[in-house]
């Protein structure tokens, strides 16, 4: 799902492949539709594509899905920004100052393997259900990739660049802004991308478990209670679309504007 794949697929999707892909999707849709109409499974559990589209359109038209999407986006972006505000400076500090690294690295390695969802019940007790819990879970999920990538990025800045800049008389401040930050940026951007991916998973899960009254995750889970499979599928489509837009358009765009332009794409994998 990195730039490399999308490039590769773009190159490989020759006309024949496009045609085959289209045929596959149509066949898959037709199979699904046939299965749905056949009545082998109850219609409620397997709604036709038509129903899903109509439901999606209805939810878009009365704006309900937009409200939920806005709530989810607010939570995910809030938590994600918090994660950057904490993860980025801490990651840089850990890489630059040995005592900071000595103190935080053991803590980070102990906390990182705990899936963020394990903290949902605890946060529900502490902060109640609603925005606070969800934002904090997103924050927890997104901080570690951010922190970890920044840390390894700053550490992996080529020492020759540092020495060269030092020889040419760069002081600490210039060294930091002109050499270390650009040098570490491929890792930092990868970190942001991974952090958002985690944040997006976390927000949907947290909304389901710590059911507040808004949010796409809550819509899906709530629809289950009333057997509204069409609503569930429609929300799935919206969730997939938003995730896709962020992954490809936002972060893909950032990547193209920065590390691809600087010709550092090889370093960005990792």
């Amino acid at each position: 799902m990195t730039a490399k794949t999308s490039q590769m697929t773009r190159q490989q999707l020759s006309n024949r492949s496009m045609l085959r892909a289209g045929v596959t999707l149509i066949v898959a849709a037709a199979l699904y539709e046939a299965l749905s109409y056949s009545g082998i499974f109850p219609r409620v559990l397997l709604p036709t594509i038509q129903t899903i589209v109509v439901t999606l359109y209805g939810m878009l038209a009365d704006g309900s899905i937009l409200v939920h999407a806005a709530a989810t986006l607010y939570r995910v972006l809030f938590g994600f920004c918090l994660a950057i505000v904490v993860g980025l400076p801490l990651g840089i500090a850990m890489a630059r100052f040995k005592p900071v690294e000595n103190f935080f690295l053991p803590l980070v390695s102990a906390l990182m393997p705990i899936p963020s969802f394990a903290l949902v019940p605890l946060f529900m007790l502490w902060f109640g259900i609603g925005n606070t819990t969800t934002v904090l879970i997103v924050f927890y999920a997104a901080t570690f990739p951010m922190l970890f990538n920044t840390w390894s990025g700053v550490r992996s800045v080529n020492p020759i660049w540092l020495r060269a800049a030092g020889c040419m008389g760069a002081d600490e401040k210039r060294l930091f802004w002109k050499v270390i930050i650009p040098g570490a940026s491929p890792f930092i951007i990868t970190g942001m991308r991974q952090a958002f991916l985690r944040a997006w998973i976390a927000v949907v899960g947290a909304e389901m478990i710590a059911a507040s009254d808004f949010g796409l995750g809550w819509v899906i889970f709530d629809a289950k209670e009333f057997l509204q499979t069409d609503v569930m599928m429609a929300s799935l489509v919206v969730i997939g679309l938003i995730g896709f837009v962020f992954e490809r358009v936002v972060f893909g765009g950032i990547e193209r504007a920065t590390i691809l332009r600087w010709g550092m794409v090889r370093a960005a994998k990792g």
Partner: protein
Amino acid sequence: MQDAVTIAVARAPQSRIGDQLRVVARNAFPFIVVGAIWEIVARSGTFPRKLFPTLEDIARSFVDLTLSGILPHHALDTVIRLLSGFFLAAVIGLTIGVLMGRSRRAEDIFLPLVSILAPIPGLAYTPLFLLWFGPGEYSAVLLVAFVSSFPIIYNSWTGVKAVKEIWLRSALAMGADDRRMFSHVILPGALPYILTGLRLGLAQAWRILIAVEMLAAVPWGMGWLIFGAREFLNTDAMMAGVVVIALIGLALEKYVFQKIENYTVVRWGMVEAME
């Protein structure tokens, strides 16, 4: 000269033990600080004791739950679920991924489906799986398998495609048949990617399994334990559960993920991965 050697020999073990102690102390220090702060906050009574238990309470419920066999049972069920889900994912993911890498037709058929299904966060499928397969074991395992198969598919697909054309042609020229070609050229060539994919898949499975256990109403499992403890305000049992989850996670990280990563990096000098 001889003196220097004997002194060095005599001193070496001592200083090595000293070094080890220093490393242990350095790693323990942050935990002691955080633990102390936690204890002070817990005892100060700023928050109700029920919601913010002392370390003593957490340790006691950890020991109690472990001795009564409840905690090990939950943990064992979680690990079994993780492994069975992951095993399913590995079999399905590798088959589809390798097929996609080998045959253009399979690639054209599967790629659009995979690219549509993969960007949706796995947990979003949970309610759907619950309706289709009913709450409980089936849904949980199937969901974990479904979600963790995507990184495996992607990476084994890329890995098989990354096998150098020259290797294939030279093996062909030397008279390798399809089976030998696969087991002697393609599989070893794609192995670093495949291992990376398996590692990412297992990590993904672990991350969502806890949430799935909370939502899918399974009878045993760590996720269920901490979620159920919430109902009774058993914050100490919950924290004990989180500790066990952290331990399982750490064990996975140390004995599985890092081993695989080191192995691939050392043997092939590669760190490229796709998530």
